[in-house]
């Protein structure tokens, strides 16, 4: 009933509110500074050595490194499309047996962190692995192609990343307006011309969007390529940080990797812009193509990505677990890393979810450039590889904040920069669904701005907070490079435990930690992805 209060009290109230909001804006500014820190630090350092940067990147070693990274990206993107395009079409638009279930379980490979997928695939495909040993029973197999390097990296990363393309394509095929094809035919186009002029342009944005996600994943990946000994930007940065005395070239390679990220993001923005008029939102009238007897031939083929990407790797883990128990492998050592993982992931998830509040209030207040910048900065972690985030934090701490170096603070900060967008997305979307009239109603009932934000915005968007918090928790559980680089000395998590053992080829030792990680992080990741897919399919 503020209208009935004397003027002086109202003025006091307003002043109090301004202080409250001012605090929120300053917090947002500080948080944004930390978010942009890796990028700022890179640019700051590089401006002093700009000429050296160009000399550095135009030498054979760095060009080879760039070529390695680019060829890996191109090959993984190509294979992801080749796997997901027919798979999505068959599952969504044909009468393939069990397609209802297959649509969802086809994204199961996403449940495996890249380093777990890599270790298990090495066991299957490398020399003296399952496949080699199988063939040795029948043939003389002295020479066997190496799984390490580019072939293994492409194989492993394609299996992990195809679900990113598959989800978009499934939703697109579900919503594709088939009248477009009929219209093109009745306007005089042959089936081939229709495919070229109508189907391809309408499918293209979805394929590109998925491909760009895959590209960013491959560019950021550290776990798989390090175990498969394939030299990319992330590996070069890590090795130069830890295996060379001078850290020579770390900043330059990082900047080069960031440039690659920005190229990918520019293409994404351009594609989104080109596709802004596409609205294939027709969910009704889904006529499935009858495959006839062919469906029984195609069905087992459609299971191949699932078999190679989930069933076989999990079988390997179970096999190792049985062997490990038999050989008394010391699985008890896993308890401490498990507790560490749960502890640091919970702390980070709670922290990141809470700091979303001031950032989102600032974005929602729509203060022209300020809110716009905060919004953009919040998503920076989405495109920066974890290795680069960690590297810049290490350098920054050594030079300016030595006392927080190798503490939990810097580790949580690393997670914050990398995973803030994951929390921000669901919270923001639940906030936008709140009717602005509720805020007005709260104000007219005399509630202060802070109270209104808490009672209306925060409380009503709590499902988004929970969803965002759980998502960050899962991502922290699996995260390897940030944990590896920023953890305090002696602090082992499941991810670092698996990676350390696998790097020294103690694969069996990784079994229990991997299975725990798949159960507590992988399966929930799958459930999230599968729910997202269901929503997009209108199920």
């Amino acid at each position, binding site marked *: 009933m503020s209208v009935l209060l004397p003027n002086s009290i109202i003025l006091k109230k307003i002043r109090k509110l301004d202080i409250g909001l001012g605090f929120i804006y300053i917090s947002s500014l500080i948080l944004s500074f930390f978010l942009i820190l890796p990028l700022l630090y890179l640019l700051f350092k590089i401006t002093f050595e700009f000429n050296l940067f160009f000399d550095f990147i135009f030498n054979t070693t760095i060009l080879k490194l760039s070529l390695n990274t680019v060829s890996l990206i191109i090959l993984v993107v190509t294979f992801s499309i080749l796997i997901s395009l027919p798979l999505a079409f068959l599952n969504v638009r044909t009468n393939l047996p069990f397609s209802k279930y297959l649509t969802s379980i086809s994204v199961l490979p996403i449940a495996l962190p890249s380093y777990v997928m890599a270790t298990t695939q090495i066991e299957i495909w490398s020399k003296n692995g399952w496949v080699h040993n199988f063939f040795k029973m029948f043939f003389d197999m002295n020479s066997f192609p190496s799984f390490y390097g580019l072939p293994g990296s492409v194989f492993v990363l394609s299996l992990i990343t195809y679900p990113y393309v598959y989800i978009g394509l499934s939703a697109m095929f579900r919503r594709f*307006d088939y*009248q*477009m094809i*009929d*219209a*093109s*035919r*009745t*306007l*005089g*186009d*042959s089936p081939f011309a229709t495919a070229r*002029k*109508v189907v391809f*342009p*309408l499918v293209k944005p979805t394929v590109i969007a998925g491909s760009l996600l895959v590209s960013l994943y491959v560019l950021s990946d550290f776990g798989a390529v390090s175990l498969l000994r394939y030299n990319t930007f992330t590996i070069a940065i890590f090795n130069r940080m830890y295996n060379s005395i001078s850290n020579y070239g770390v900043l330059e390679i990082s900047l080069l990797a960031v440039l690659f990220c920005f190229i990918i993001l520019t293409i994404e923005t351009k594609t989104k812009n080109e*596709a802004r*008029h*596409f*609205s*294939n939102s*027709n969910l009704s009238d889904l006529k499935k193509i*009858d495959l006839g007897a062919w469906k029984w031939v195609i069905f087992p083929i459609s299971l191949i990505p699932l078999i190679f990407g989930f069933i076989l790797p999990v079988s390997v883990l179970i096999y190792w677990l049985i062997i490990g128990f038999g050989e008394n492998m010391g699985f008890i050592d896993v308890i401490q890393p498990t507790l560490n993982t749960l502890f640091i992931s919970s702390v980070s998830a709670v922290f990141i979810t809470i700091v979303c509040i001031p950032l989102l209030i600032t974005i929602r207040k729509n203060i022209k450039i300020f809110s716009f910048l905060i919004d953009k900065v919040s998503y920076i972690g989405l495109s920066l590889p974890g290795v680069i985030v960690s590297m810049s934090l290490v350098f920054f701490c050594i030079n300016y904040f030595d006392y927080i170096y190798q503490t939990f603070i810097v580790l949580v900060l690393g997670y914050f920069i990398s995973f803030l967008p994951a929390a921000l997305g669901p919270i923001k979307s639940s906030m936008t669904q709140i009717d602005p009239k509720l805020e007005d109603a709260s104000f007219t009932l005399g509630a202060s701005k802070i109270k209104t934000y808490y009672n209306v915005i925060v409380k009503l968007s709590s499902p988004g907070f929970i969803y965002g918090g759980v998502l960050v928790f899962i991502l922290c559980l699996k995260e390897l490079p940030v944990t590896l680089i920023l953890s305090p000395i002696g602090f082992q998590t499941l991810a670092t435990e698996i990676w350390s053992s696998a790097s020294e080829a103690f694969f069996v030792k990784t079994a229990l930690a991997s299975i725990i990680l798949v159960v507590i992080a992988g399966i929930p990741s799958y459930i999230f992805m599968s729910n997202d897919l269901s929503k997009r399919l209108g199920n």
Partner: protein
Amino acid sequence: MKIQDNENSALIPKLEIVNMHFSYNGARDVLSNLSLSVQDKQFVSVIGDSGAGKTTLFRTINGLEKINQGYIRLDGFLQSASFFHIPAEKRSIGTIFQDYALFPHLNVEKNIKYALQSSNFDKKFYEDIISLLEVGDLLDRYIDELSGGQKQRIALARSLVRKPKLLLMDEPFSNLDRNLRVQIRRELKKILTEIGSTVLLITHDSEEALSLSDKVGFLYAGEIIQFSTPQQIYNAPDHSVIARSISNSNVIFGEVYEKNVSTFIGKFLLNENFDETSKIYINVKPNQLSLSFDESNFVIKDKEFLEGSQLFVVKEIDSGIELNVKMSNSEEFQIGQNVGINIIKKEANKLLE
């Protein structure tokens, strides 16, 4: 500006469908023994309820589906038969889809020019169509930036610039609100008459079909069961299903001798003679009946205000039979009130079941 000049147009039907059968994957016939003929410059509609086979008819005519029996001819040339099929892209049929099927990745100009050869098309005719449909200001826009009415005009322009021999429309007004629908219907009729198009409209909306068409076909269970002028189909439907669907008519059972039909509400006169006593169904329009206060063997179940009149649904208390009665707005009868029924016009026509 004329879309076509065919000297033989008076002799050969523009579209001729004879004894056509169609089924999906050999299952039950969706269209059976269907025949239809559209003359040059004629506007013909096919009305049908859901599941009658409208969309299938649309897809067989424009060549998107192959037929099992019978044939389809366009300007005398065979298009479809059990042994022969000209694909959709080779038929000169302009098609307007229910949702317009405009390409979202192309702007309006590219949509309209989609089917035109870039170098070799009648620019004068193209410009005439653009000007006639008043879409010149929309050419740079994308489809998501257009209103429902604008989309419809673009879809029409896209079909017409190809100078099709036949314009085939599938429920083209169903996505428009009522006011816009009436306005656009009038505009469309004017434009199509001006161009001299031959049109086949497929719709579930009888009002739309009756107001636009020279002839109307009624599609029921995959078959055209009546094909006549709008007046005939409205005033003297052949079948009880048409009577009920088109004019809210009452289908009443009665006993006929000579021209007199005795029913449970009174006597009617037929326009044909029966030498022997027979049992038949007759068509009695709602405006042939009126309500009265004096008798009370009926009760008013529902009433609906229409333009200038009101439609009452009354139920006979003993048998539960319901009748539609149309009266002027000035009559004040209430739901639940007991009333009697008077016959104010005795002429009726016999219906097939």
